[in-house]
């Protein structure tokens, strides 16, 4: 394999089709940027879930003397009812820990954060005592909820996941949207690459014709074209990665993270983790598209 020959062929090819090469680079960079954005949103989704899952707990509220509904037959939860609820929770294999919160503690927690006039008119008796339950696997909340929901003395079982559900669903939709757009872009990039390589093959048909005639192997004839596409793909992917870094820096690190501290945000190191995949995707798409094109246009 004569390395110098291959290099000079690539340089010639890239120069001859400069406009198309630029088009390929731009398309690849956009599709890689979108693909990277999709991955970023996915990582964000994971980070958000990870952050919240540690904090997600089930609250089992018990009846007080004012309670209506639920299994409150009348009046406050009795000691035996409370013990039975606690035992049920502690025996359940999905339950990691159970904390008891008395009415007084609930009152403290309620009045602590806000200097609210409402706090003046209620007293601990108005609030409910509760069990706060941490789960082994936050996804498995159903079983725990159903195990205690029917017990006497339970007014209500509250699962925090229900609050976070819409957020997660929104993130999922963002993710799907970004991936779909990326796929469309990848198709466009593939077609553009195919066209560029076809032009390159056409403009060098004299050389390739002679190469075929004197018995150069297909691999040798096609290699400069495939590398040409791969190089354009690589440049495009690098630009795409840069765009993802910029997005992370501007949108996440500067805009979102300082203002919304209720969750963890994707960091630059998350983007670094994606870089190899993004580069690989860009290069492989380009090389593969040109390979398929050449199979049609540079047959033996």
């Amino acid at each position, binding site marked *: *394999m*004569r390395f110098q*020959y291959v290099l000079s062929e690539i340089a010639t090819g890239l120069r001859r089709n400069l406009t198309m090469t630029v088009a390929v680079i731009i398309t690849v960079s956009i599709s890689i940027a979108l693909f990277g954005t999709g991955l970023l949103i996915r990582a964000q989704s994971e980070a958000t879930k990870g952050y919240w899952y540690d904090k997600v707990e089930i609250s089992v509220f018990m009846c007080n003397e004012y309670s209506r509904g639920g299994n409150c037959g009348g009046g406050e939860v009795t000691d035996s009812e409370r013990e039975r609820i606690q035992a049920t929770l502690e025996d359940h294999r999905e339950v990691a820990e159970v904390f008891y919160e008395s009415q007084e503690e609930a009152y403290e927690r309620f009045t602590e954060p806000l200097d609210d006039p409402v706090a003046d008119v209620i007293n601990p008796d108005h609030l409910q005592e509760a069990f706060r339950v941490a789960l082994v696997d936050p996804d498995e909340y159903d079983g725990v909820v159903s195990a205690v929901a029917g017990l006497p003395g339970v007014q209500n079982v509250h699962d925090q996941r229900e609050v976070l559900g819409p957020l997660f669903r929104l993130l999922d939709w963002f993710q799907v949207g970004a991936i779909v757009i990326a796929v469309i872009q990848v198709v466009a990039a593939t077609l553009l690459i195919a066209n560029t390589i076809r032009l390159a093959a056409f403009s060098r048909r*004299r*050389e390739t*014709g*002679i*190469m*075929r*005639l*004197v*018995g*150069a*192997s*297909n691999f*040798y*004839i096609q290699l400069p074209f495939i590398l040409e596409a791969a190089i354009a793909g690589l440049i495009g992917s690098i630009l795409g990665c840069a765009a993802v870094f910029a997005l992370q820096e501007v949108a996440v690190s500067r805009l979102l993270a300082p203002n919304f501290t209720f969750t963890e945000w994707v960091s630059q190191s998350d983007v670094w983790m994606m870089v190899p995949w993004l580069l690989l995707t860009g290069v492989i798409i380009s090389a593969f598209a040109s390979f398929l094109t050449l199979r049609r246009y540079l047959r*033996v």
Partner: protein
Amino acid sequence: MIRFDNVTKVYPTQSGPALDSLTMEVERGEFVFLVGPSGSGKSTFLRLVLKEERPTSGRIRVAGKDLHRLSNWKVPHLRRRIGTVFQDFRLLPNKTVFENVAFALQVIGKSRRQIQRDVPAVLDLVGLDGKQDRMPDQLSGGEQQRVAVARAFVNRPLILLADEPTGNLDPATSVGIMKLLDRINRTGTTVAMATHDQSIVDQMRKRVIQLEHGKLVRDQSRGVYGYTR
């Protein structure tokens, strides 16, 4: 060296067959003229030998290989044993004489040392010593064809195919090219040449195979052109 057994080639876009049940054999070291009017199947014959086309039916053996059984990835190796020369020379205009000939060796992965050794030798053989740094457009037609012959022969092929190599040349220059092909033939290389050039065929007195409508109509050793256009 080249053997056709009942070979028929039909192009999908044409009505009649380009070759019609052609059976013939060219021995090692032979010099053969293929004559016949345009469209008689001469070029198809050459393309079939190179496996640029596949026959519709029949068997072809070239250099001991059954082309039907030769897998696609081995076709380049077949072509390394066949040199080809065309009417239009097909030189690369942006490469010098030396580079044009060297190109044929470069692209089959020969070493720099081998190129430095073989290219001057073959340029000497075709009578172009001293012109290796010229560009093709600085050469006469005859000289350009010599470059093409050098390129075809530099890898010492078993077979040299020539498709009307003198078609663009004046008679005096053509004689020079024919002498060159004759010299190459004398090194043991089988030469098959398609031509319309009556005077050359008549002068050379080599085997003549005449095709018409893809059929073999005459196979004559030490023959003449034999028909008028």
